[in-house]
Structure formats: structure tokens, C-alpha cells
């Protein structure tokens, strides 16, 4: 449809054949630029890049950096959806640059901006130390007293299944960009960190859930979440942070009711 329309228009306006070709194989990128030394706020800069079938958004950005404008700054590393460093807002949606095909956006333009809800360091690079602080708060490691004296702690496949889904997180922070609460309330711990807390709570080798509950059953912790559900929708690893947080709430509510109804019990 779009291609046909273009051809008719070019024929009418009597353009040369080569431009018709170029129109169909080029795409306009509108990339957000921000230089802390020069700009008061970000602005969009346009680049034309070719469309290749096998290209992802990250390839297009690298093409710009190599061939057009070496000052463009963005994070990436693995090119295979594992390192979690290439999250950008692509046409307003948080996505991994290396897992999003360029041709899906033809005929363009494609708008590429830094992830929402984070301070911007430069161009597409966001400042994430706030998230790293929050991550530490949920104690995302196995908490275990003593030892069983036999080396490893064995786990059945069923026990692994309890938390496996929530352990797939690559810290790409797409969920924070999708979560309005993370933007509105900067002290809210946020989806990925809470999902990770849930992951350790559900681990049969872990004994730290009471400790974590003390930090997370808190308005800045799980109770800040209003189940918008966007984190789950955008997560490229199907971690389902929204589900994890609701399950956590359910557990915390049971916990709270228990200590409310039986105050003589421990804790």
C-alpha cells in the first residue's frame, strides 16, 4: 500500500527512477540528541539509513555512527538480547535496539529516544545508578544460614520452576521506562528489582524472605505498585514483573494478616 502510493506520487511529480528506489530502501531515523555541555534539552536529529532485511535498530544506529555522525552516543554490547544495555524508546515504546527489526518500521520515520523515567547523560545514554541502589536494597542474592555439610544444595526441577521465569531478567530497564509509577515516584523500587526479590524469595535454597519483606512491604516497595501491567508487556525476557509483584503482595498480605490476627506469634 505505502510503497504503491509512493511510486504513484513520484511518477506524477516526475522524479527520476533512482529516487523512487532510494525512497523504498531508505528510512529516516529521528534520533534524540543531548549534549550536556551544549544543550539545555534534547532535540531530534534526522539521519537517512538504508533498510536491510536483517538489520535491527542497533545496526542502523551503528551505521549512523560509522558512516554519518561519529558523535552519536548510545550503549550496546552483546547484540543478542543478553547484556541489556541497548534499551531505547522506539516510536515511544521501550524496546531492545538489538531485538527490534528496522524493516518493521518502514516507511518510517523511526523515532529513537533514551529510555523514559531516567536522567539523560548524553544522547541515548541514561543514568542508572539510582536503579543499582534500588537493586541492592532487595538483597538479590541467596541468603542462607549455616551449611548442610554436603556441599551443593540440590534442587528439583519443580523447585526451579517456582522462580525460573523471574530469574531471566537482563536488567535492560525497559520495564522502568514503561512504568508510570517509576516516573512519578522516584523512590518506588520498581518492577525489575521487585521481581528479582520475588525470584529469591521463591528459591528453595533461600531463607531471606522475612528480611526482604521488612524492606519491601513498604509504600516505596510493593505497595507503590498499582498493577498498571506495562512492565510485563514490554519485558523482552517474559519476566512478568507485574505478576511477581502481585504475588509478592499476596504473600505480604497473608503475612500481615497472620501477625494481625495472631500478634502473639513470632515477628
Amino acid at each position: 500500500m505505502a510503497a504503491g502510493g509512493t511510486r504513484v506520487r513520484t511518477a506524477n511529480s516526475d522524479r527520476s527512477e533512482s529516487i523512487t528506489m532510494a525512497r523504498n530502501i531508505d528510512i529516516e531515523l529521528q534520533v534524540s540528541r543531548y549534549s550536556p555541555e551544549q544543550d539545555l534539552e534534547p532535540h531530534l536529529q534526522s539521519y537517512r539509513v538504508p533498510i536491510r532485511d536483517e538489520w535491527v535498530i542497533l545496526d542502523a544506529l551503528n551505521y549512523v555512527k560509522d558512516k554519518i555522525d561519529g558523535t552519536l552516543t548510545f550503549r550496546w554490547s552483546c547484540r543478542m538480547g543478553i547484556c541489556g544495555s541497548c534499551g531505547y524508546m522506539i516510536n515511544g515504546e521501550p524496546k531492545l535496539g538489538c531485538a527490534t527489526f528496522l524493516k518493521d518500521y518502514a516507511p518510517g520515520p523511526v523515532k529513537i529516544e533514551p529510555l523514559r523515567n531516567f536522567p539523560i547523560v548524553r544522547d541515548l545514554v541514561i543514568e542508572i545508578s539510582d536503579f543499582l541502589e534500588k537493586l541492592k536494597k532487595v538483597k538479590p542474592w541467596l541468603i542462607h544460614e549455616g551449611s548442610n555439610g554436603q556441599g551443593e544444595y540440590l534442587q528439583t526441577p519443580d523447585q526451579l520452576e517456582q522462580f525460573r521465569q523471574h530469574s531471566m531478567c537482563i536488567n535492560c530497564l525497559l520495564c522502568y521506562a514503561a512504568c508510570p509509577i517509576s516516573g512519578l515516584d522516584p523512590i518506588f523500587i520498581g518492577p525489575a528489582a521487585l521481581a528479582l526479590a520475588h525470584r529469591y524469595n521463591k528459591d528453595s535454597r533461600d531463607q531471606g524472605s522475612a528480611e526482604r519483606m521488612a524492606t519491601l512491604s513498604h509504600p516505596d516497595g510493593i505497595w507503590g505498585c498499582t498493577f498498571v501491567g506495562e512492565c510485563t508487556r514490554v519485558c523482552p525476557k517474559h519476566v512478568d514483573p507485574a505478576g511477581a509483584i502481585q504475588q509478592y503482595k499476596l504473600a505480604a498480605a497473608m503475612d500481615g494478616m497472620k501477625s494481625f490476627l495472631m500478634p502473639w506469634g513470632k515477628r
Partner: protein
Amino acid sequence: MEAKKSHEPIFWTLFSAGGVVAALLLPVHLFIFGMAVPLHWIHGPAYNLLLSLAQMPIARLYLFVMCSLPLFHFAHRFRYTLYDGLQIKHLNEVVFASCYGIAVLGTVAAGWLLWRI
């Protein structure tokens, strides 16, 4: 902040219980008395019948639960809607008191009405 930490599970439990009750019981009630009867789709029950129906102990309990818990559902959800939608977290106490004030008042009203009916 510390006080809230220990109370939030209770409010959330009330929110959830109210959400279930509201989802299961409210639509049909509003459908009958807010739409079907006023629009003459069905004949409303006659006054005496309705009164004797509402006087049955089981009906009183049903109506009490149907009125009370959903108000606590409302209080929790609307409080957060106001925080997030209008960005008025600084009015925390006022919003909190009004939302739960409505819920408690409504619950007392429902209990009183159903007791005397």
C-alpha cells in the same frame, strides 16, 4: 511511614476482598435497579415483597457485604488514582482520611440501615 508499613497489608486485603465482591455482586444489582426497572425492561418487585426480602437475615448479610467491602476497595484504589493521576502525593493524609472516611461512614450507614429495616 513506619505506621503505614504495618497497615498496608490490611488495606490491600480489604481492597482485594472488596474488589471481588464488587466484581461479583454490584453489576447485577445496578443493572436491575438502575437500568432494568427504571427502563421497564422488567417489573420491579413490589414494595412489600422487597421489604420482606431485605429483612431476611441472609439478605441483610448479603447487602451489608455488598455495600461495605466495595467501599474499602474504592478507598484504596481511588487514593492511588489521585496520587498518580494528579501527582498529589503531598496531600497524602488528606486524601487518605477522606477516602477511608467515606468507606467507614458508608459501612456504618449500611449496618445501621440494615439493622433497622
